[in-house]
């Protein structure tokens, strides 16, 4: 089933008594599972209106401090649930914090949060392409924030370029047939129960095994993610040259990579993920090692960002709370500032926005 579902209990250690946290948690639970089908990118969250979470008719989450008029600079951000802001209120997602940073430095920008749960970079590239076709005002800057979903994908499917939950969606699609027949019985509750029992048995057997994935398998899976990501970067860069935007790619932190001094809660979160998906930790580590070595001018590895941070930052093995988002956003802004995208006054090189 879907990853990036809210953890079962509110991790109070991360929120430290934030008054909005319990209601945000309830809204996340309500919004997270209301998905709509979308052509080519397969799913997006349905429209939702709450106190801490708001999603518009296009399935896009609200970005605070964003000013989207006919003039002014536009930043489109793509990523999975970590960018969408799982576990954070609208005003504390990475896109909202970035928009705030621009506003605080005297530059109003339009930031659009295209993040969606469990999305991988190919989905994001396709979303970018579709959005470029539809948008009258093209973006000035496109940011990708990826890592965990892409690295996890080969664990779920052997297809080289797929999306998450492929087996589930394939079953839904193929279970339906225009031809008369008896395929509909595969959707019956009896069939579902038997399937669930089989999956349970398989998972139990898998978790009993000492090493669910060999080193060769892990290396091959990591390589698939790495090569696919570079190809997606190439296409995004190509679109950037044609439509006149710059692009930057950020690789997100996870508890399985880097050297964060983990809190008890974080150790528990890491253990839970490893129990649910045996071998996934090693896969993440090997994949992240490959990405750490990338030396492209528009790629930035942020997975070490919490290396000396002893605070509770992670809600689960991949999502950080508002304070973690703030640190990620600051690092992103530093990169953009260095490349002349901080606005008009802060960069030595002048503004590339102009």
């Amino acid at each position: 089933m879907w990853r990036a579902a809210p953890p079962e209990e509110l991790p109070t250690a991360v929120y430290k008594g934030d008054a909005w946290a319990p209601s945000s948690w309830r809204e996340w639970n309500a919004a997270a599972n209301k998905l709509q089908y979308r052509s080519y990118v397969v799913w997006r969250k349905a429209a939702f209106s709450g106190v801490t979470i708001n999603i518009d008719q296009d399935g896009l989450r609200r970005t605070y401090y964003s000013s989207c008029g006919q003039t002014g600079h536009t930043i489109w951000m793509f990523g999975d649930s970590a960018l969408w802001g799982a576990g954070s209120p609208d005003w504390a997602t990475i896109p909202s914090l970035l928009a705030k940073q621009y506003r605080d430095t005297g530059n109003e920008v339009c930031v659009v949060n295209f993040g969606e749960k469990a999305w991988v970079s190919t989905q994001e590239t396709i979303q970018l392409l579709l959005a470029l076709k539809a948008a009258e005002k093209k973006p000035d800057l496109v940011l990708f924030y990826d890592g965990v979903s892409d690295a996890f994908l080969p664990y779920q499917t052997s297809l080289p370029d797929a999306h998450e939950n492929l087996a589930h969606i394939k079953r839904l699609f193929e279970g339906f047939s225009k031809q008369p027949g008896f395929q509909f019985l595969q959707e019956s509750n009896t069939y579902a129960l038997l399937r669930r029992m089989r999956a349970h048995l398989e998972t139990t057997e898998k978790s009993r095994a000492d090493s669910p994935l060999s080193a060769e398998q892990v290396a091959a899976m990591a390589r698939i993610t790495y090569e696919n990501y570079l190809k997606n970067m190439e296409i995004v860069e190509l679109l950037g040259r044609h439509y006149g935007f710059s692009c930057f790619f950020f690789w997100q932190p996870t508890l399985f990579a880097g050297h964060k001094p983990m809190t008890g809660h974080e150790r528990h979160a890491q253990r839970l993920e490893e129990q649910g998906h045996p071998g996934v930790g090693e896969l993440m580590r090997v994949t992240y090692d490959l990405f750490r070595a990338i030396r492209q001018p528009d790629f930035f590895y942020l997975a070490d960002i919490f290396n000396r941070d002893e605070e509770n930052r992670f809600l689960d093995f991949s999502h950080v709370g508002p304070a973690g988002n703030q640190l990620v956003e600051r690092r992103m802004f530093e990169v953009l500032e260095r490349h002349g995208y901080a606005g008009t006054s802060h960069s030595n090189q002048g503004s590339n926005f102009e």
Partner: protein
Amino acid sequence: MELQSPAATKATPPGATSALTPRMGVKAFLKRLSVAVTLTLVLLGLGEGASYLVLKSQETRKTTAKIDSPIYRGQSWAATYWQELESAEKVQYQPFVVWRRAPFTGSAINIDAEGVRRTTHSYCDGNAYTIWMFGNSVLWGSGDPDWGTIPSYLAAKYENAGRKVCVKNYGEKNWVSTQELLELMLQLKQAQRKPDLVIFYDGITDTWLPFQSAGPDVHGNFNQIKSIFEQAEMSKSMGFEYLLRSNTVRFLKLVSQRIQAQGKGGARPLTETQASAMASTVVTNYFHNMELVEVLGQHYGFRCAFFWEPTLLTGWSTLVSPQVAPWIPQQEPGSRPVFAATYKLMRNFHRKDFYYFGDLLNDSPATVWLDNGHTSPDANRSLAEKMFQTFAGAAGGVKDAAIARARGLSELYEP
């Protein structure tokens, strides 16, 4: 045989009445309940079986009608083809492009593990000049054997001209140009050998799309697929929605649709303004897709060409009456204004890599049409020949550009 009177069987010993009657009553109730449940199940089963047979026979009737079409008279492969197509129609889910046909091996139809149909006269083992072709079922070759598709005829033309090329038929039923663009992008990511030439052959499905669905830039059957996905998401695999897809419910829906259609006269009327708006949506979207294909071409080093396919649903179709061509289904007359408006726009569109083929079959006999869009192998041959002439010289298929010019194709020729 000694018959026992019913009265005798029902006789109860004195004093035992109060103890046995309730037990017997429960027994009798259970017996009747079992009979009732069994009967209900049998009736439901019979209803389901009967609905299946009715729906199946309808499918078979449709196929038989196609086999009887004059296109297939005297064609030894026709019966085999239609028999194979029944199995080859099965599609599989494919990430991002949504569906592709499942692998199939036959004598008239062959589909490889990637869901790509066989192209004859194509040589993809070495480093031959490579052509990728994208389109809907017309390009795939619905109604045609492997050797009678447009890609196969194009490959044959090159071969006959002394040049072996690799032609890949990425056509798929009901695909629209956005799906094809994404397939191109995904294939470019995977392929070691990039294409030299990419051909798009579109028209009917793109034009049909806004008539079928109000959503912008979607794929065919969008509403249906959206409903499958969202119902399953809502029910999270628990519930009884699956019964809506049983043969009985489908049969009842079909009956209800027919009754409704009779009442309304069938067609959805479109005003000229609505048709123009839809045409404008189709054309704008197609231009965006062309632009993106060209961007990919510049980067990956291939030429691209876009052909707009003919259809009976344009103005000329009014000449084909059920009396002249009874095998052609007279469906959805409401969509005709959209086709007329879209094809009018495309006919007047000039771009160096765009070729309007919409009128190419206007002087052909009605027998080139299998239905409103799918064409016979003979028609495919002539369409492939026109395409080949378009590329004269590009792959060394025709040695001299003068030949192309002599054929009156100078406006299409590009050195």
